[in-house]
């Protein structure tokens, strides 16, 4: 065997970075041995059921608990009045607002939490909840965000009357939460005034819900003897939950243990702290018994964490050649009854300012006004980085609108506006420094793979026959990996993340992270990083997450931040260990540390391939034979504060055929090229892209949380709320290029959200493109058969 072959073989054995390692999580899941929150059963455990408001806006006249309390097996009925003496009837939100834990004198959205019945089991709890009698005096409901700041609008938040601030800056109306703006308004306005061409369009991201298959829930267990609280919880950010619990309850953080066990999907739904958690915890403290609370699907869709609800107007200014000169945007953000959106605390519109996208736009201005309405609170990043879906939807729709106005091909207009490879690192007009990108070759790769010219030709032929075929393009740039702590924090905690690695004497290791997997395969991929960095087999590396008693503090998993931040922490921790190992190896080899070099899984004396110490040998020595003055052991913890975000990009192409009689859209082809920098596990990346595309498909083609004018929620079960099945879901084609991040230790960027963020505008662009020859530049999501048919019918194309 040659030296090169030997190296390759040793590399393969590690199953490190770049290999499609099979997942370590799978054996338990395929045998029904996952451990999700609802699987947790503790001795003496009680169950909670929430009594919810049937009305969107109403005063609570009275609550009568007697019948419920009389039911055998009911232990407590908790209302706001019970929480008041504890100061727990309101709680802080991540966005600086406060939210009623249980409705305090009034309800402000339908299904709001009014009381919790705690009983022996879920059957009795449900019976008890039916017996709690609540009398309401119904108030006029405010549903339309455009009417929120009318003079005569109903006041949603009586508690804020007279206050000119609600946690995120000045407000100007009782239902106003904040104004956020970014960019040079005057210069932008001037650019529009002087532009050869301008376009303007409504850019609407309707209210949707992430709906992971597992709903939210928790088991709270308070140990009265030790004053210690353990909470099993469906959380994407268990450490933040621990801090919030301490801030709320006053229990020392060292006595609060939060465990996120297996999580059945998150997609942003499981970032926030919800009233159900808080009441279950209080119940456990009061009753001294474990209390479980698990949402129903209807509760989940109705109350915990909607996404989007951005009602905007987008504008582009350009020259006659389609070169963009300026971008302008304004939006109303409907935050519901409490400002509980899950964003870095100082970012009321998240990272929306990424909205200049992949294009070299000299000047831009964006403004978002948050308003209260009688709807559930939330505003989470549904499989995206904070408000990045909204931002990408804006620019990717508007560039199509501009192309149509100027009759420029939709691929060509992108070519003309792309940031060029040599411009990186690129300073965007709205303040970001894009780390790396190479858009044009990626676009050409996709166009060629799909025979774009051929598709356009076919489209022209179909149009001549009256058939509807659309080609959608989306060439997006994301911003993920929050984030540099100087820019991002959650409740004052910087958005670093962490990894602790311990290498055991016999050369296996355990690593613990501040992130938490919800299906992304962290147990598999983090081990690959460590394997490559330390030369230990992946199979000998255990990854643990989610238990705040053992894992180092971390901000959790959302916004595609695990690889950019947690992965970086892992690499950095491993490198610290390797640096120490190098000294030990040199000591064992009796040379200077500078005289040894790393070779896959071992240190070798430079120029002497026979003088080697494997990492396993070094690990053993770390516990019995270290250089003079060195501490024993081989472990470290790294808290990684990234210098910048990462900026993955993608080029997507979608071909649709629309049935002009029924409005049904069939996805003939969806081709997704993603560039997430260096790739750790291609199999998992591909799986993430498939899943993200499917969620994009769901949002673009059918998802909608809708209300009537009285604030009654419509379609809050899976009968109506669109989750595509095997039958509706299209086939996905994936591709990639690699443009490493220059600042990430592994050159990696994060990927799971790109397909959602980039997929949604791609579907929309395809559907709208099908009508482009009829002068249509825009229709709103979701593109249900009914909605598409309305366009068809209006244009008379169904005759």
């Amino acid at each position, binding site marked *: 065997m040659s030296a090169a072959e030997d190296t390759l073989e040793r590399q393969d054995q590690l199953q490190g970075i770049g290999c499609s390692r099979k997942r370590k999580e799978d054996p338990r899941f395929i045998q029904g041995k996952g451990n999700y929150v609802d699987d947790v059963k503790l001795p003496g455990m009680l169950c909670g059921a929430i009594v919810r408001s049937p009305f969107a806006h109403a005063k609570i006249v009275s609550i009568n608990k007697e019948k419920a309390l009389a039911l055998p097996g009911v232990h407590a009925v908790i209302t706001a009045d019970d929480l008041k003496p504890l100061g727990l009837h309101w709680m802080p939100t991540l966005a600086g607002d406060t939210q009623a834990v249980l409705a305090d004198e009034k309800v402000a959205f339908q299904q709001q939490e009014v009381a919790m019945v705690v009983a022996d089991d879920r059957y009795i709890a449900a019976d008890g909840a039916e017996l709690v*009698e609540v009398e309401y005096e119904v108030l006029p409901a405010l549903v339309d965000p455009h009417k929120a700041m009318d003079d005569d609008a109903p006041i949603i938040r009586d508690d804020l009357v007279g206050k000119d601030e609600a946690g995120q800056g000045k407000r100007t109306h009782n239902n106003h939460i904040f104004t956020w703006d970014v960019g040079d308004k005057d210069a932008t306005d001037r650019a529009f005034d002087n532009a050869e061409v301008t376009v303007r369009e*409504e850019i609407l991201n309707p*209210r949707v819900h992430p709906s992971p298959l597992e709903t939210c829930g928790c088991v709270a267990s308070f140990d009265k003897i030790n004053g210690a609280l353990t909470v099993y919880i469906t959380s994407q950010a268990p450490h933040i939950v621990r801090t919030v619990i301490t801030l709320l309850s006053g229990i020392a953080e060292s006595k609060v243990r939060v465990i996120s066990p297996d999580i059945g999907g998150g997609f942003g739904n499981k970032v926030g702290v919800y009233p159900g958690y808080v009441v279950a915890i209080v119940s456990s403290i009061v009753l001294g018994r474990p209390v479980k609370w698990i949402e129903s699907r209807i509760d989940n869709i109705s109350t915990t964490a909607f996404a989007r609800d951005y009602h905007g107007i987008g504008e582009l200014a350009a020259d006659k050649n389609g070169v963009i000169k300026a971008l302008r945007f304004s939006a109303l953000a409907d935050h519901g009854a409490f400002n509980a959106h899950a964003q870095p605390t100082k970012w009321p519109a998240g990272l929306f300012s990424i909205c200049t996208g992949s294009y070299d736009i000299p000047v831009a201005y964006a403004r978002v006004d948050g308003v209260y309405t009688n709807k559930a609170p939330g505003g989470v990043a549904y499989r995206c980085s904070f408000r990045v879906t909204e931002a990408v939807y804006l620019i990717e729709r508007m560039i199509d609108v501009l192309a149509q106005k100027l009759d420029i091909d939709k691929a060509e207009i992108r070519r003309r506006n792309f940031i060029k490879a040599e411009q990186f690192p690129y300073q965007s007009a709205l303040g970001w420094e894009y780390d790396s990108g190479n858009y044009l070759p990626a676009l050409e790769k996709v166009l060629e793979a799909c025979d774009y010219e051929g598709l356009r030709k076919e489209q022209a032929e179909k149009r001549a026959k009256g058939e509807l075929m659309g080609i959608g393009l989306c060439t997006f740039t994301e911003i993920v990996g929050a984030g540099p702590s100087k820019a991002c924090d959650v409740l004052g905690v910087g958005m670093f993340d962490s990894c602790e690695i311990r290498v055991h004497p016999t050369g296996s290791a355990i690593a613990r992270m501040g992130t938490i997997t919800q299906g992304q395969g962290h147990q598999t991929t983090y081990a690959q990083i460590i394997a490559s960095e330390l030369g230990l087999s992946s199979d000998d590396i255990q990854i643990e997450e989610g238990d705040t008693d053992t894992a180092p503090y971390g901000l959790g998993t959302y916004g595609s931040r695990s690889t950019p931040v947690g992965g970086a922490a892992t690499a950095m921790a491993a490198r610290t260990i390797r640096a120490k190992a190098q000294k030990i190896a040199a000591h064992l080899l009796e040379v200077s540390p500078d005289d040894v070099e790393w070779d896959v899984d071992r240190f070798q004396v430079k120029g002497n391939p026979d003088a080697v110490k494997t990492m396993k040998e070094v690990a053993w020595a770390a516990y019995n034979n270290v250089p003079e003055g060195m501490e024993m052991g081989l472990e470290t913890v790294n808290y990684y504060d990234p210098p910048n975000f990462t900026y993955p990009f993608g080029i997507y192409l979608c071909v649709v055929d629309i049935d002009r009689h029924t409005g049904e859209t069939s996805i003939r082809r969806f081709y997704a090229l993603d560039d997430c920098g260096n790739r750790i596990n291609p199999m998992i990346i591909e799986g993430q892209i498939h899943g993200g595309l499917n969620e994009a498909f769901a949002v673009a083609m059918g998802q909608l949380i809708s209300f009537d004018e*009285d604030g*009654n929620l419509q379609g809050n079960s899976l009968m109506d709320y669109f989750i595509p099945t095997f039958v509706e879901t299209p086939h996905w084609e994936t591709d990639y290029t690699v443009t490493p991040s220059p600042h990430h230790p592994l050159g990696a960027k994060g990927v799971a959200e790109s397909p959602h963020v980039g997929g949604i505008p791609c579907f929309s662009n395809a559907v709208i493109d099908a009508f482009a020859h009829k002068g249509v*530049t825009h229709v709103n999501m*979701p593109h249900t058969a009914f909605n598409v048919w309305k366009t068809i019918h209006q244009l008379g194309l169904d005759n």
Partner: protein
Amino acid sequence: MTVAPSYRHFFTYSVNSMQVTLNKIVPLDDTVEKAWKILKDIEQVAGCMPGAEITEVIDENNYKGSVKVKIGPMNVAFKGEINVLDIDSDAHQIHLIAKGQDSKGTSSASMDLTARVRTNESGASELTGDAAVTVNGKLANFGGRMMTQVADQILGQFADNFSQKLASSSTDSGSEEPVASKPVEEINGLKFAWNAIIGVIKSFFQSRK
């Protein structure tokens, strides 16, 4: 060209409201005066409402009442108030608002009703009703959109009962006593109506027995 009119028509409010408006015209077999005698008497009118009952007279314009229906597996009991806004004896027209909540507090309904008896062009007397019915809460979440059908059927039953009452009062020759107000027992129509609600709720799910 933007085909989509305004966002309002597309999302957030795919259905404008759980409010439905209904108009009914029912021919009557007796004189307008006799019919008006019944119509202006809220207790008698309530008695024509299937399953309804006046439980308390607060004053001449305000009443408390209930509607109780038990159909198959379903029990519905609404309690509420009736406020008479206007009795116009010249126009033979009454305007009232009835609203209530179900006993579990999970749904509410209200009806704004203007009812009138008149002589039509061909000289026959008839009862006209214009009602706006609004449903909120659980019923609106799960079955609100069938309210047109349901309310239509309830009003139809009301009209039938009204004409029956008129007919029976007419046969009470010479008696000036108003017909005793009592809940109408025939609730087939209502059964039908409530079944429709239940059915919608069921149909919200895959309806596959």
